[in-house]
């Protein structure tokens, strides 16, 4: 098992290297540089040269790339160009846990809506119960966050004054071990609206997976056997079918989380949440190359680890699967 993990990690190194190299080249091939302008104003040539010299952008590209790789080996992702005095490491350390918290809570909500909807849909296939539970699950993904977010803010916060309109209820200075938010009332009341906005968008994924997986499972021979043994329908579903049909559902958690964390730009923007999603978009517009590379790297590494995690979860959940 350990050997398998090590092999997978070694496999990932050339892939990650290529991703860094190509992202490095692509980002620099975008027209415009990080120091062309200040606000609406363009900067004189001499000022731009000073800035480029300060950040080593006047070196040949291969030296810049080598320096960058050297930095990665040392665990240093370089300085940000657009936030003077802040390093990419620091930015990730401050914003990534928030996106992760938002992502995990959202996926949990998606599970809570999606799995029951999927189960009901599977057991009552092609009935109005199937249609309406699928409808509820799919509705979330069909309403754009740009509409749902402001709508929730307007109704829940402005009209009824039940919840704060925006912001995240905890910041990086308060996190335990740098990752875990304090479970205060303040944290939860700020989390509700963004989590609903983001989480409902993923409930369809879980509903669909559960439905398909369960439909398959209940036609397996051992389920027939269980039924033949005289178990109640409820017992059959809960004791036998559920376990196996949950395998694909549980394993989708990791890769989906990576997608949610990096795809939370709209929700973070609307709710003013200082997470990572913002940087995936603004760093490109700012031509802040170190953040572009840092976020891409984080995303790719997350994806590699999530995929390995999926395979391991499979092995753990299904004794028939062995890796050596």
């Amino acid at each position, binding site marked *: 098992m350990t050997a398998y993990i090590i092999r997978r990690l070694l496999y990932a190194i050339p892939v990650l290297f290529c991703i860094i190299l190509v*992202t490095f080249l692509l980002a620099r091939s975008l027209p415009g540089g990080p120091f062309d302008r200040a606000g609406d104003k363009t900067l004189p040539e001499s000022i731009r040269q000073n800035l480029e010299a300060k950040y080593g952008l006047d070196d040949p590209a291969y030296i810049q790339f080598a320096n960058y790789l050297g930095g990665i080996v040392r665990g240093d992702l370089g300085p940000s160009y657009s936030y003077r005095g802040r390093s990419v490491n620091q930015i990730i350390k401050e914003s990534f846990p928030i996106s992760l918290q938002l992502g995990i809570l959202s996926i949990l909500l998606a599970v809570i809506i999606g799995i029951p909807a999927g189960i009901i849909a599977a057991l009552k296939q092609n009935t109005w119960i199937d249609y309406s539970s699928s409808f509820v699950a799919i*509705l979330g993904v069909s309403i754009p966050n740009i509409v749902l977010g*402001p709508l929730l803010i307007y109704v829940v916060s402005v009209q009824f004054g039940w919840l704060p309109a925006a912001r995240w209820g905890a910041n990086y200075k308060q996190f335990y071990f740098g990752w875990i938010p304090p479970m205060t009332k303040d944290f939860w009341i700020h989390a509700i609206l963004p989590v609903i906005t983001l989480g409902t968008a993923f409930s369809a994924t879980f509903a669909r997976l559960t439905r*398909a997986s369960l439909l398959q499972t209940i036609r397996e021979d051992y389920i027939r056997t269980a039924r033949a043994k005289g178990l109640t329908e409820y017992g059959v579903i809960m004791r036998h079918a559920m376990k196996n049909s949950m395998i694909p559902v549980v394993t989708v958690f990791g890769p*989906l989380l990576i997608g949610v964390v990096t795809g939370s730009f709209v929700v973070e923007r609307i709710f003013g949440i200082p997470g990572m999603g913002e940087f995936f978009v603004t760093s490109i517009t700012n031509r802040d190359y170190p953040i572009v590379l840092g976020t891409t790297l984080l*995303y790719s590494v997350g994806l590699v680890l999530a995929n390995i995690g*999926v*395979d391991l979860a499979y092995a753990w959940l299904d004794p028939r699967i062995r890796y050596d």
Partner: protein
Amino acid sequence: MAAGTTTAEMTSAAPVTRRRTPTGDAIRQLRKNKMAVVGLIVILIMIFIALFVDTSLFTFFTGGKAQPLIAPYHYAEVDFLHANAPPLTRTEEGKFYILGTDYLGRDNLSRTLYGSRISLSVAIVAATVSLIVGLIYGMISGYGSAVRDNFMMRVVDFLYGFPLIIFIILMQVYFKALSATDDTNPFVAWLIRIDDAMGGIFLVFVAIGLLNWLGMARIARGQTLSFKRKEFVEASRSVGSNDGRIIRKHILPNILGPCIVAETLAIPGYILLESFLSFIGLGANPPTPSWGIMISETYQAMRVAPMNVFAPAVALTLTTLAFNFLGDGLRDAFDPRLAD
């Protein structure tokens, strides 16, 4: 289960059995799923609207200026004095705004109807391109040797890791330069004409399709792998069929169904991607309407002129729901094990 399993594979269709499913079976199965039928009808209506919202389908060939057909007004027709008008506004000039107007006094109903054109076509264009590329790539990968397969899948892993936005910005730059050149090649000129008509994002979505085939490639590969060892394929090989014939006659017909299903389910994603790109400002050039642009232009006005955002949002939600239900229904229909 082999290494490299991912979300895409698992969210895709459940494995298809060895039996070929006659299309008739699938249609019968599909018709049992009422929501899928409703979805199909909604999609057909949307396509009809997109085609006949104005006369440009005819004027594209005959020349001349297109006139609104289904839509009451042209999408760029402004009425500054009646900006943000409420629904059912009738003006002194005899104009009638059923769903009100936006911040420049443009008819919401017309823009929403016109919007179907951009939103649907970008989604369908991207889906078609990605289906073709993914299918071919996946079949080559799955059908060939293990070494080739492994290499080709590592390439897919590698492409997965990229920030899409960089590509999109680059492609917009590239296509803009392309449309500035006077290309004499009639095909290129024709493409540029379509691109202009669609506010400069047609080619971007072609390119998005060219990048988004990764999930499709994985599905096609998985399906190919499972079929190439089947008895009937072996039998065909033993009577001397070459690889091309086997792929054409046995593999492709069997895997096409699940792949089309997966792509149908991907279409809502493209529609939402268009609205995301509009939100970050990389959508079509104004004043071309798409649902995504209309939403991102007006969501801040939700309180003062709710119809500005709800009209396109309802259209978008209906369409994505319809594609989702159709896709789910198709998947059930193509998987005989799920038949009851």
